């Protein structure tokens, strides 16, 4: 790698780490995810500050074209991240389902007192005039 690409890499690394820290401080990124990305930043920083590190490692592993090592690591890492997200998604889906059920049970059976039906409405018990005609949660469907 040339000096310029090196400077570029170092600059990008610094920017990335700063962005992550900012996001965490603003509470936009949960700390547990920030660990993941800060680790990436750290690895990048090390790679940037010790120029020959990747090359030597590639040689040791018998990788003929050194950038391949970098790509290999990057792809492996991204795969792990994607898998982790799938895992989290599955968990969240399960919880959202449970919550939706719980909500439906808490809300109780639908009661319609409004004169939507042909029959005249009977005086319902006080405080239970739930019409449920509003499109709640429709935008989520």
């Amino acid at each position, binding site marked *: 790698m040339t000096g310029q690409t090196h400077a570029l890499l170092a600059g990008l690394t610094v920017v990335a780490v700063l962005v992550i820290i900012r996001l965490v401080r603003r509470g936009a990124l949960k700390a547990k995810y920030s660990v993941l990305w800060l680790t990436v930043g750290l690895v990048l920083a090390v790679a940037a500050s010790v120029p020959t590190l990747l090359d030597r490692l590639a040689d040791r592993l018998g990788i003929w074209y050194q950038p391949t090592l970098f790509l290999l690591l990057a792809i492996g890492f991204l795969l792990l991240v994607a898998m982790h997200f799938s895992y989290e998604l599955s968990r969240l889906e*399960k*919880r959202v*389902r*449970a*919550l*939706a*059920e*719980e*909500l*439906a*049970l808490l*809300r*109780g*059976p*639908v*009661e*319609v007192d409004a004169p*939507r*039906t042909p029959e005249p409405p009977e005086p319902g018990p006080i405080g239970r005039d739930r019409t*449920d*005609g509003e*499109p*709640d*949660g*429709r935008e*989520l*469907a």
Partner: protein
Amino acid sequence: MRTAVIIPAFDEADALPAVLADLAAHVPDHEVIVVDDGSTDGTHLVAVAGGATCLRLPFNLGIGGALRLGFRHAVREGYDRAYQFDADGQHDATQIPTLLAALDDADMVIGSRFATDRGYRVGRSRGVAMALLRRLVGAISGQRFTDTSSGFRAFRRPVLEFFATEYPMEYMESVEALVLAVRHGFTVHEVPVTMRDRSAGTASNRNLRLVYHFVRLLIVLLAGGPGGRSRRTGRKGTSR
């Protein structure tokens, strides 16, 4: 013996009144529970107008999600048995006694369109997929089922309690549920029934989606399914 009818309904305001009338005519002593699965066409109003108890999900969960809510409700309300009935008019209320009669010797009964030839037809690719599922379910369960994806099924209370927490949610969940019940040691029988063609609403099988769900189902069945050990232990941390 208290019996509940569980009807998952998603945008079935057009077909539902006829179904409810059919049920009221043939099985007036069964409590009808409509689970409105996030409909936006006023399905819940139609359900209540038709004399049913209606639970409303805040958004669409799919048949499996709606069913599990129905099972939970049935368990909470202390029903001895319940059966599942389609909101689109596909199922025939005159067949209900046949289904429930078989529940005397089984924990769960499936109403099969194909146990004897009663004229129900499906397309070719669908037929092939169903045949494959039949084979696979047969191999896993050690039992012969002719209609693994039927949505006309009856359950005794122990099965209701089991499904109230364990019912699968994804599309074609009925096959998964069948295997789950057999694996769990429940006796599952099949009885021949007749069904109608769907009267209103659209069947939810666009081809690519169907292929995806079919492959997903194969993986679930071959991998031991969510009823296996992994799900059990994974359940510990959740809110149920």
